[in-house]
């Protein structure tokens, strides 16, 4: 129950810089008359209509000379730049560098947040020792510590990975603890009645019960990881998508800048898609995620 509320909050938080939420996706639409007439596919096509029109208007304004290329280059120009950078420039290399940073930070943050979350979720003693400190650190917007991180770690790879990991740790931690605590005590009691060992209790009841909440944390963490990476790469990077953008700023190459923004957006959408795929696969049993059978 509160799981749902939580994911609602998370979606609102993610919404600003990431993919459309599940509600606006293709599935859960009421069987209205329009729905029946168009079908799910028709509605999905319809939802792409407005963005397409916007891009066409944008292109037209740029072609007609109403938009200065210095302000906003035409979409066709951005696409041409993308091809050029991909074939002759360092675009692919920068993309890989950025993805590796995000992946490393995400892995570390997940391990730390998940590990602490499991400890605190299971043990009241661990909660007493750890939880207050984590909650206090969490109260600080993690980007506010950036100057300190730069003093500590400079502007190299470590700083970037650290920042991503920091952003990832808290959503994973909080949702892991919450998930474990939310497991229905009646099911734990059932486990005892059926004679499960502690290990079996964890494997068969506690972890599956906590999984929806943990995956919500993963989804949220993906968005934070991405935000952290953008900020970290904007400061003193020598490679990566953020570096590309900063470099382009020096030369007023708005086409490259727009391209990097689009790339960030695409990767955000992809990450969210992966998270949603995981939810559908791992939570097939869950009425809110799985496909109905």
């Amino acid at each position, binding site marked *: 129950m509160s799981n749902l509320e939580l994911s609602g909050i998370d979606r609102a938080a993610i919404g600003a810089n990431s993919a459309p939420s599940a509600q606006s996706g293709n599935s859960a639409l009421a069987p209205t008359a329009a729905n029946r007439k168009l079908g799910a596919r028709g509605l999905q096509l319809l939802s792409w209509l407005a963005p397409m029109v916007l891009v066409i208007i944008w292109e037209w304004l740029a072609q007609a000379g109403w938009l200065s290329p210095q302000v906003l280059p035409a979409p066709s120009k951005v696409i041409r730049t993308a091809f050029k950078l991909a074939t002759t420039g360092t675009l692919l290399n920068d993309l890989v560098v950025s993805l590796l940073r995000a992946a490393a930070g995400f892995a570390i943050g997940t391990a730390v947040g998940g590990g602490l979350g499991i400890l605190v979720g299971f043990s009241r003693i661990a909660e007493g020792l750890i939880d207050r400190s984590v909650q206090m650190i969490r109260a600080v917007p993690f980007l506010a510590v950036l100057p300190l991180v730069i003093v500590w770690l400079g502007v190299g790879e470590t700083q970037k990975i650290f920042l991503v990991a920091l952003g990832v740790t808290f959503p994973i931690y909080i949702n892991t603890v919450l998930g474990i605590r939310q497991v229905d005590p*009646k*099911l734990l*009691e*059932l*486990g*005892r*009645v*059926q*004679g*499960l060992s502690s290990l*079996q209790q964890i494997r*068969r*009841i506690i972890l*599956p*019960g906590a*999984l929806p909440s943990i995956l919500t944390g993963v989804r949220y963490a993906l968005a934070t990881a991405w935000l952290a990476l953008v900020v970290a790469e904007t400061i003193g990077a020598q490679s990566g998508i953020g570096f590309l953008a900063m470099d382009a700023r020096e030369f007023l190459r708005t086409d490259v800048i727009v391209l990097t923004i689009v790339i960030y957006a695409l990767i955000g959408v992809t990450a969210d898609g992966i998270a949603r795929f995981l939810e559908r696969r791992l*939570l*097939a*049993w*869950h*009425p809110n995620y*799985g496909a109905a*059978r």
Partner: protein
Amino acid sequence: MNAHVAPLSAALFETGPAVVVSNLVRRYGSRVVIEKLNLRIERGEFVALLGESGCGKTTLLRALAGLDPIQGGRIVAPRRPAVVFQEHRLLPWDSLWRNVSLGLQVPDARERAAEALTEVGLGDRLDDWPRNLSGGQAQRVALARALVQQPELLLLDEPFAALDALTRIRMHELVRELVANHQPGVLLVTHDVDEAIALADRILVMRNGAIAFEHRAARNGSTPISRSELLGELGVDSHSTH
């Protein structure tokens, strides 16, 4: 009744009761709920436990299940009892056969679960999710999960209370059949006097923390206990209600 043929291993231990409770005391803080309660249930015997709300029926059942500590007396049972609760308590993330085999430590768990599910009429739903079941079907799975453990004592805490009248009657037939096949001792907690009369070999009424009334079901033509007599034991003046 006695023509039942048990497997050899079970036959060796076929003697002795399913559970013996002597001088059981159970308190919550200073409130005594069960006071010097004695009870003995034989294997294959179906016992129904009645009593007004809050008299301690669930408390007794939980103590028998080993879910709560007891403050006095003894409970002797050969093996861990199986329990069916009022809610089905199926794990929503496990398929039906995984639910039924929960805690079963055998290599052929799936086959055993399949047999049990077939027994309750759901043999074709092995890989289905619990959320696709009706209330009565879910409770049948819970029964299968209890019986697959081959319990010597089966504890049922108002397992049919949430079902509609028709489903409940079907469930009565099913339970009677299953108990006849598996021959566990059964303690059925219920509010339904008719349910108790229909199913039980012996009807107990709990009052003031102990068994206050006991009735052995009529066999071979002797007159069965009347509904109004039982309702009287439960403190209900049946003439004014019916």
